[in-house]
């Protein structure tokens, strides 16, 4: 029987938000884990030749904050990620100070499904936006 007192801690409209950044060392680690060593992410000269200020942070490294949302930023440890969508609107660069925010936009009492609208911002600029779905199981 699910513990509904825990489920009730999830409230539509609730927001979680935190700041984060990724270093060039983080980018190197991600390149090893992902087996993606495209120079757009690792080489300053190459990235600038493509019109960017610096190597781009991997989109899926930015999206890793969605894992942090479900795994670490929920009222309990009972949420399981079931889906993500992410649009990459503007580039993010190593050591940029970024803000990840997530708003709970849908909570289904019938299924214990959760849906969050997410955003990554640098100052007032939206760099990424997306959706995260999860299921809660106590």
């Amino acid at each position, binding site marked *: 029987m699910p513990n509904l007192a825990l489920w009730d801690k999830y409230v539509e409209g609730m927001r979680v938000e935190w700041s984060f950044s990724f270093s060039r060392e983080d980018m190197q680690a991600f390149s090893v884990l992902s087996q993606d060593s495209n120079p757009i992410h690792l080489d300053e000269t190459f990235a600038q030749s493509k019109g960017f200020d610096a190597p781009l942070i991997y989109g899926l490294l930015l999206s890793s904050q969605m894992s942090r949302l479900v795994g670490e930023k929920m009222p309990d440890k009972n949420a399981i990620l*079931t889906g993500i969508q992410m649009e990459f609107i503007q580039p993010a660069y190593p050591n940029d100070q970024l803000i990840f925010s997530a708003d709970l936009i*849908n909570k*289904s*009492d*019938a*299924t*214990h*499904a959760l*849906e969050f609208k997410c955003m990554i911002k640098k100052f007032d600029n939206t760099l990424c936006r997306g959706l995260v779905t999860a*299921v809660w199981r106590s």
Partner: protein
Amino acid sequence: MPNVNVAGIISQLIPIFCDVFDDDELTIDLSTTAEDVDGWDSLAHIRLIVSIEKFFGLRFSAAEISDLENVGEMAELILRKQANA
């Protein structure tokens, strides 16, 4: 003869089922159950119920969903909730 309103709900459910189960050829009727549809597991069931809630603008309780035996009963539940909205 099936209630024509139930038939109307079924016709609205078909594209939802097709989308959730990624099968444009999928057909459903009043007697369809999870056993009749490939991939209708617990996670797909969650996606299905959430999609139905969003499409019809309704909220179901866990008890309402657990009592359903087939798609026909889901259609009847939708009609009842629309009537009480």
